[in-house]
């Protein structure tokens, strides 16, 4: 194992683990803001209880997101120092903006959001919740801009010392060609991820008690999200794919499993096992010309294959091919459950169809899996480059010895599995409890509720 493979494994491991938490917390922060807004507007206790129920979960998720995120801001320098030196003048400022406009906003208002409702009152507390939700979105904005620039680099100049330098317009760099599509697709993915977790928790409790008002409300809200957002997401994903075809055609070749060029219309490969050694897909199940139809909107449109790309410039096909199918498959399963929920709603059986509830429980982690799969498609599909077409991964790494990277990788694996494994167990434990009519505030821990009467401001509204 050489140091570069180990460094890649480490980055992939730490970023994948990290990504799970913001993918959940971006949506959850917005969901909490919606719940609090509905509570302020209607005064209904069910919203206050749901808010408190999910706030406890949010606190744990957010803590894990923060600590795994700090690691990421150092990984660029520890493992990819040459990349950092070269790309720093362009992507560094974008990441600095993320810290200035997002991280501080989230962290600054989090304390008030978690513990402050009795100190600042409902309205100001709602402002804090909104600030945290906005912060999570702004964070996604900047980091996806950075990632998109690495996929579709524009607006740069090359300095005499080999650095990438910003050109005259920062807007060109920030709003690089793949950014709007990636941002839209990823943020929707985060909302769907949260919706399916919320839906699964609601469904789980409905299976035990159909009359639980909190479970009914959260399940219903989640199913609206599935019904409305899943189709939009499939459309957004298609747009993102077309954008990728325009700017990173090689990635699409790997996603489609097109080893060969198809001058008279390319087939859509549904399943098969990519065989990179033989340059073909084994056991293939395909629809003739359908790929050309989807990508070019024409049955006979020619599509180039990986045979037009030098061997050294090809991404690993198998991983990209499979990850893409996992993501798309989950997307359609989400669409399916959304449609089922509409039928159930129409028949006034949303809270009674236990088969639908079981399906929803099963789909609980689907968003997380889809998000990771999508991330793998876009990141592995960018290989063998860190900055697409311009800087190779092999030329980006830090001058480190393999043993140093190997031991730190081992340490990360052990610590992450222990710490986040227990954290996820706590999350499941919190989710296992049904939402109650008098949901305790976050400070249900001994000291926080000792002495002082807890949360009079909330209690009066919480009588669902």
């Amino acid at each position, binding site marked *: 194992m050489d140091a570069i493979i180990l460094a890649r494994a480490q980055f992939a491991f730490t970023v994948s683990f990290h990504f799970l938490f913001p993918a959940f917390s971006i949506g959850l922060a917005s969901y909490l803001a919606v719940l609090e807004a509905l509570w302020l507007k209607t005064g209904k206790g069910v919203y206050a209880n749901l808010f408190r129920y999910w706030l406890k979960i949010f606190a*744990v998720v957010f803590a894990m997101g923060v600590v795994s995120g700090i690691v990421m801001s150092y990984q660029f320098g520890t493992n990819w120092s040459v990349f950092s030196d070269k790309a720093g003048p362009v992507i560094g400022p974008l990441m600095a903006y993320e*810290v200035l406009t997002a991280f501080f906003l989230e962290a600054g208002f989090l304390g008030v959001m978690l513990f402050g409702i009795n100190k600042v009152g409902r309205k100001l507390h709602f402002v804090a919740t909104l600030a945290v939700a906005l912060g999570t979105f702004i964070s996604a904005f900047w980091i996806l801009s950075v990632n998109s620039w690495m996929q579709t680099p524009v607006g740069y100049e090359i300095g005499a010392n080999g650095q990438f330098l910003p050109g005259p317009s920062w807007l060109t760099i920030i709003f690089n060609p793949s950014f709007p599509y990636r941002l839209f697709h990823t943020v929707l993915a985060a909302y769907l991820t949260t919706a399916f977790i919320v839906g699964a928790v609601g469904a789980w409790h409905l299976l035990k008690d159909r009359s639980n008002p909190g479970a009914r409300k959260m399940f219903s809200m989640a199913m609206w999200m599935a019904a409305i957002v899943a189709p939009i997401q499939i459309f957004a994903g298609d747009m993102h794919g077309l954008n990728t075809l325009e700017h990173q055609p090689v990635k699409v070749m790997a996603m489609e499993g097109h080893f060969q060029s198809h001058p008279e219309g390319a087939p859509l490969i549904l399943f098969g096992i990519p065989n990179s050694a033989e340059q073909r897909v084994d056991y293939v199940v395909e629809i003739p010309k359908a790929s050309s139809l989807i990508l070019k909107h024409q049955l006979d449109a020619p599509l180039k294959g990986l045979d037009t790309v030098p061997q050294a410039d090809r991404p690993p096909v198998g991983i990209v091919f499979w990850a893409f199918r996992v993501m798309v498959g989950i997307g359609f399963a989400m669409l399916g459950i959304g449609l089922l929920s509409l039928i159930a709603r129409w028949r006034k059986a949303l809270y009674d169809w236990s088969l639908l509830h079981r399906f929803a429980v099963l789909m609980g982690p689907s968003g997380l899996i889809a998000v990771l799969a999508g991330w793998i498609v876009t990141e592995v599909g960018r290989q063998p480059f860190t900055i697409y077409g311009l800087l190779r991964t092999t030329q980006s790494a830090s001058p480190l010895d393999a043993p140093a990277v190997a031991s730190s990788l081992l340490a990360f694996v052990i610590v992450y599995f222990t710490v986040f494994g227990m954290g996820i167990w706590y999350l499941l434990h919190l989710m296992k409890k049904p939402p109650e009519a008098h949901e305790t505030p976050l400070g249900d821990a001994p000291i926080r509720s000792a002495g002082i009467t807890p949360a009079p401001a909330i209690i009066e509204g919480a009588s669902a």
Partner: protein
Amino acid sequence: MIDLTVIWACIIGFAIIAYVVMDGFDLGIGILFPFFKVGQDRDTAMNSIAPVWDGNETWLVMGVGGLFAAFPLAYAIILPALYAPMIAMLLGLVFRGVAFEFRWRDPAHRAFWDTAFTTGSVIATFAQGIALGALLQGITVEGRSYAGGWWEWLSPFSLLTGVGLLIGYALLGACWLNWKTEGGLQRQTVTYAGRLGIGLLIMIGVISLATLRLETQYYQRWLSFPGVVATAQVPLATLIVTFLFYRSLRVKRDVQPFFWALSLFGLCLVGLGVSIWPDVVPARVTIWEAAAPVRSQLFMLVGAAIMVPMILAYTAWSYWVFRGKVGTEGYH
């Protein structure tokens, strides 16, 4: 001489100061945690920082993010050079960060998460101290990259700075708890603050003298005439601040000892500045050599000029919301 690069060096210097001021005390509480009584005292100590620790730690990201953006070459040299301490610090921060939530979620394993809180805080602090020492003693640089081995950071001097920072942060933690708590816990922390103050003063003296021997640049900065007239004010001020610190402790002030302890840290940072200015990798790379182009620095300066005052404002508001003694005011 005041150009964008100097301004950015000052902003990053400010982020480091802000980090030490804000995260120093909450790491310090982690270091002192095992000495507090299980139950009420530990819960109070934890609660005194629960609403603010996340914001405090963001300054660390600001420091390193600012370094990446404004001085990418320095970021690319320093982080591989400090590989092991940096990874250790990050893993330490993981443990202590999650402990804030996990210890409430899992009473059966609270002892485990309390130990994780302390271990994480000690490792993170020790690693930061080691990083400082390793940078000061000079790292091997060739061309645009780090060229030393992966154990170069380890030396008696860097271990010394590591221990120094442990004592320093513990002092800040003790002073913070003196401010925010009452009764037995407060009396306990006052005693600790008194002892830690002596420890820190000794460490400052030893590390300062040892620093002078590391590079001729440092020696000349501090001791050549007539500069010595100015630089001698730093140790003098340190003695005066120490005196004021002990006087405020003796007359049982709640708030002042914390700020005098912070002033001691401030003087150490001034001393550090005297030694290394204008280098970003001490005695190796100057801020101008490592600087990002004007376009990058200018773009970020616009953002920093607008955002930093706002950040300071709402951070101050957040502290204000949770003001007062933890025991009596109680946001639990």
